[in-house]
């Protein structure tokens, strides 16, 4: 079934180095829609990304930093980016060669349209 997020996930997936993207519910960690390459364990990663986003949101709130707009988890060969709105979080998985700056702008713009 095609969801309202299919198009934006497709756009994100076209970025260089992006292995996949999905929209996940922060509350329960369940992926609402995804567009990932074969071999990517979308469900497990979606749940973990949602949990990280939630922890970051709570920590930011406690620190008086306000609402989280963008999150980036870096690893040796790539990482995860997340941008949320209300309960929904847009997540991308990327390799090191991805242009994170461009991806960030695209994700923050797309996150504003999440409903």
């Amino acid at each position, binding site marked *: 079934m095609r969801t309202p997020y299919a198009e934006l996930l497709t756009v994100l997936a076209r970025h260089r180095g992006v292995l996949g993207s999905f929209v996940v519910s922060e509350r329960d960690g369940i992926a609402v829609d995804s567009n990932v390459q074969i071999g990517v364990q979308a469900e497990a990663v979606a749940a973990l990304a949602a949990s990280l986003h939630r922890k970051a949101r709570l920590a930011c709130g*406690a620190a008086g930093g306000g609402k*989280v707009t963008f999150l980036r988890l870096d*690893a040796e*060969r790539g990482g995860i980016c997340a941008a949320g709105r209300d309960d929904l979080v847009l997540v991308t998985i990327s390799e090191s060669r991805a242009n994170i700056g461009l991806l960030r702008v695209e994700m923050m713009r797309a996150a504003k349209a999440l409903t």
Partner: protein
Amino acid sequence: MADEIRRLSDDLARDPSSLVFMPLADALRRAGQFDVALRVALRGLDRHPYVADAHDVLARIHADRGDLERAADEWEMALRLDPSHGQARLGLGFIDYRRGDFESAERRLSAATDSDGGVATALSHVRSALAARSGGSVPAGSPSHALLQPTSPPIPEFPAPDLSRARQLFSPVLDDTDQTALLVDGDGLVLAGSHVDATGSDVSEIVAAELAGVSGEAERAMRHLGLGAWTSLLVEADGAVIAMTPAPLGSLVVVAASRETPVGLVRLLLDRALTRARDWLARVA
């Protein structure tokens, strides 16, 4: 002390343009609340940039934070504004002494007037240190002799920084008042550092608790993806940028800066805080 701080805070709130920020900042410094003291002093100096005593107070805060370079800058500014400022000379002498430049310390302290509290005693200690270094004898039983013994505390007349306090672990690597750093263990308990929110409240424990388990989840996510070990987590929010990185013993170094701080600078700050945390953990663990 708490009553004094409360009273001075009330006074400052009633008249923000008054000079009461100086005793307030100094009281906060003496209470070990360096971040808040620094904020109060800097705000006061925005209004009163030409008050030598205000620069002296700020210098003492920097010195207690272990930032001798900035302390020296402020004491030099105090001296430029008031060439007879004895406490500034005493402070600069202290810094020279700490750097092992006893000759310069002696010159500075000799130029201070007799009425400056502590100058004569400090000068005596510096001369003793000079004599000891050049192989001269220091009379047994003299105060200077006692102070030069290995088990003696540092010269008490100087505002010696206390870097052993874990809460101030990261003070030397933080560049301005909007930056904070924390070292959090795997259970979300604060090991070192502090985080003060915009109202001046210390919210370190709450922030640390909310971050419990972050390291484990980041590690699991990366394992599922086969992208290697996680190196950092950067969170951009409306009013702050928060960055964290794994540290030894399953701990987490967390730094926070205002939203205006460039992200690259936050990452640099994170690297510096991590280096300091590693050193500290190696000593205490």
